């Protein structure tokens, strides 16, 4: 019988939530690495029992943990992330040059075919890769070394490379996003990159339509149509139909188009989900009502989904890596909040219930569909 495993990274440890295909009764395992920040945890599509976790604290720095048994046991692997060559500088908040400094791993993206190959998106923005299951990490320097790099600024959360998408139809193509440099695409396995931000408009930039400098919060795609990309930007929900060559806004009737997460229904590439957040200055849902918004038309026309979600006095946030979908026949949607709740819907978002209520602030949610 099929089963789902939800991997939850929090401010104070990792939790693993499991249920059968009905997704009604959940077992909670954790905290793993109690007291540590778990920015992200993800399983290998090629070997679902192979998991990777990014573990860090301000005291002890960055660790990478690996499990070979679906998260029952873990072992620390390599944590040496050294920029290739002389790192140079990017711009600081005050517009002065600032040396590139490794701080943490925001996102781990295992290869779709090789359980020992994993990409790591880090702060300060760069892309690393391991080919030996995390024992050693090498930078793909073409990303950080892009000619626009010296002009990149950090977002308020740091200059993080937070999104890594692999094109399932083209093993040479991948996408990344950086706050606040924007989105980039590689067509040669990560060797070289080009900005893909045409159509984005960011009022905080001197040139609102600049080639780089946009605060992209998250990008998502459906594996059946990898040329169609969806983006939650700092403000604006965007769509591209040409692999990021151009974007157009699809915020439509959303109550606010600020937010962090965006994801795509596992069986319908035109059905997408966002969680609108009031503003960049007030990181909580409008009117104190936690609502997921669903579009069945690839954007522009949105419907609120609130059944089972708190509709008064709710002032949590949903961070950029904290939404995921399973691939069961009736698509399951999951998201975690900074208030420590992980909500699940087993019916494509029509109804919701909390799997857990009181975890530490949730940084990331991933889901594996097993069996």
């Amino acid at each position, binding site marked *: 019988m099929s089963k789902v495993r939800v991997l939850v990274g929090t401010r104070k440890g990792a939790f693993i939530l499991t249920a059968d295909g009905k997704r009604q009764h959940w077992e909670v395992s954790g905290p793993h690495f109690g*007291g*540590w920040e778990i920015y992200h945890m993800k399983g290998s599509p090629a070997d679902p029992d192979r998991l990777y976790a990014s573990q860090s*604290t*301000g*005291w*002890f*720095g*960055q*660790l990478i943990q690996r499990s070979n048994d679906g998260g029952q046991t873990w072992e*620390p692997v390599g*944590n*040496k992330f*050294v920029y290739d060559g002389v790192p140079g500088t990017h711009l600081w908040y005050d517009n002065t040059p600032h040396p590139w400094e490794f701080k943490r791993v925001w996102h781990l993206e295992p290869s779709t075919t090789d359980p020992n190959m994993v990409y790591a998106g880090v702060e300060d923005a760069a892309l690393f890769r391991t080919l030996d299951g995390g024992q050693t990490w090498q930078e793909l320097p073409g990303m950080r070394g892009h000619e626009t790099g010296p002009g990149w600024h950090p977002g308020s959360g740091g200059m993080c490379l937070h999104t890594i998408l692999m094109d399932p139809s083209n093993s040479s193509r991948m996408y990344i996003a950086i706050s606040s440099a924007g989105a980039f695409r590689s067509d040669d396995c990560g060797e070289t990159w080009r900005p893909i931000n045409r159509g984005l408009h960011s009022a905080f930039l001197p040139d609102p339509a600049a080639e780089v400098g946009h605060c992209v919060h998250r990008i998502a795609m459906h594996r059946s149509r990898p040329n169609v990309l969806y983006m939650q930007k700092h403000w604006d929900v965007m769509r591209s139909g040409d692999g990021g060559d151009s974007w157009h806004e699809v915020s439509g009737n959303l109550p606010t188009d600020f937010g962090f997460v965006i994801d795509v229904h596992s069986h319908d590439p035109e059905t997408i989900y966002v969680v609108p957040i009031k503003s960049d200055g007030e990181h909580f849902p409008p009117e104190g009502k936690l609502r997921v918004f669903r579009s069945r038309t690839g954007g522009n026309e949105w419907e609120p989904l609130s059944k089972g979600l708190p509709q008064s006095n709710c002032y949590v946030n949903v961070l950029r890596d904290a939404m995921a979908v399973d691939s069961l026949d009736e698509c399951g949607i999951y998201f975690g909040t900074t208030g420590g709740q992980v909500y699940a819907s087993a019916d494509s978002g029509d109804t919701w219930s909390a799997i857990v209520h009181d975890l530490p602030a949730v940084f990331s949610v991933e889901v594996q569909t097993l069996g």
Partner: protein
Amino acid sequence: MIRVVLPAHLRTLARIGSGEVQLEVDGPVTQGTVLDALEARYPMLRGTLRDQVTHVRRPFIRFFACQEDWSNAPPDTPLPEAVCTGAEPFLVVGAVAGG
């Protein structure tokens, strides 16, 4: 025999239990040689106390011995005789900070 006391999180990481670490250090006993020996015995601690390339101490880590703060001493400075003989431990301390 050099005695080293680690913060709880690092004892958990290295699966040391609740006790001290006892290390043999060849040659002069300094902050640097003690940390070298510690990381050789417990490779998972690399990067948690000092940078893996520059060996610069992480900002929220302190080193104490014999009621003195050795955090900012040059890493090749000999540690006190009481640490060298094992009469006193070398303390690795996480700063009281954060939430």
